[in-house]
């Protein structure tokens, strides 16, 4: 058995081998082996359900981030209309971070959906194998001597064991992935909590670590562009922003 295969299913195989060695009566072994398989299938179902739950949580985080993007955009406009370009810039920097995170989160949720489908397929396959084992064990019980039965059982049980181990591994991978995503999305949420602009006059640029970090993220060019666009919009909208000055005289009747 090649290294990889051996490593992957060692745990389950050794469990099955122990079961096989323990009982002296093959028919007892068979029934017990089947019962164990059915139990493990329940774990597989639960594992898939956990992946689905994690995915839903990520989708919720994603819609929260969407709201955050809208909110930061509004705040940037407010800040700019009150002549606080520094604050507007900070808000836009945060918006850029949130947007980037949102994109990757959405993409990963889509990937996870594909994995979920695959896992459901795998579970179905495993169920078919367990059912085949059930049928086979009755045939073995009826047709073979104890010694022959032992060999036949071992073969069939290892076939099921490998499938079981493989589905387990796939679930583990999907779970690891959701954990990583949750952690990243959580970090962005913290960022939001640490720097919400409830009162835009409270925060100045560079007053907290997050602002400095954000500035370093290289969001600069995009933020400059957006700021310029926002200025132009507010400028042509007139009136509300005294600090912007320039357009004022022309817009007066």
């Amino acid at each position, binding site marked *: *058995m*090649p*290294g*990889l*295969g051996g490593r*992957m*299913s060692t745990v389950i195989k050794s469990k099955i081998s122990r079961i096989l060695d323990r009982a002296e009566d093959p028919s007892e072994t068979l029934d017990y082996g089947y019962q164990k398989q059915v139990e493990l299938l329940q774990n597989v179902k639960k594992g898939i359900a956990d992946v689905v739950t994690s995915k839903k949580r990520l989708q919720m985080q994603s819609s929260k981030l969407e709201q955050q993007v809208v909110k930061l955009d509004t705040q940037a406009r407010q800040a700019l209309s009150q002549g606080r370009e520094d604050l507007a810039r900070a808000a836009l920097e945060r918006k850029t971070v949130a947007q980037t995170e949102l994109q990757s989160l959405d993409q990963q949720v889509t990937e996870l959906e594909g994995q979920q489908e*695959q896992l459901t397929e*795998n579970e*179905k*396959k495993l169920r*078919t*194998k367990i*059912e*085949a*084992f059930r049928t*086979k064990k009755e045939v073995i019980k009826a047709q073979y001597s104890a010694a022959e039965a032992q060999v036949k059982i071992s*073969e*069939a*049980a*290892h*076939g*099921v064991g*490998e499938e079981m181990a*493989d589905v387990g*591994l*796939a679930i583990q*991978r999907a779970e690891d992935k959701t954990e990583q995503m949750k952690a990243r999305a959580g970090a962005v949420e913290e960022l939001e909590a640490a720097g919400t602009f409830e009162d835009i006059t409270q925060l100045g640029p560079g007053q907290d670590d997050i602002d400095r970090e954000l500035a370093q993220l290289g969001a600069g060019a995009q933020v400059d562009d957006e700021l310029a666009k926002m200025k132009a919009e507010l400028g042509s909208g007139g009136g509300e922003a005294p600090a912007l000055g320039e357009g004022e005289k022309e817009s007066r009747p």
Partner: protein
Amino acid sequence: MIVRISGEGQYELPDEDADRLNELDNRAVAAVEQGDEETFHELWEQMLELVQNDGTALNDDELVESDVILPPRDTSFAEAAGDFSGEGLIPD
């Protein structure tokens, strides 16, 4: 030879393909050792293709152990370092 693509299923591969698979496996190990990610991904793709195109998918109700288990399709280069080392997936 029975080959499993982890996370997907088992295939019955003609014996004459075993050498080809082993050769690709050895070259993949070499690519990983040299840190050549691009070559590794090319070889990995070829291994998967060989199994899928030349192999026959086993029925779901067949209860056999695999001779070789390939890692999941989306194995990253970093993960591959663990699997594709020494003699590779298929011992020489």
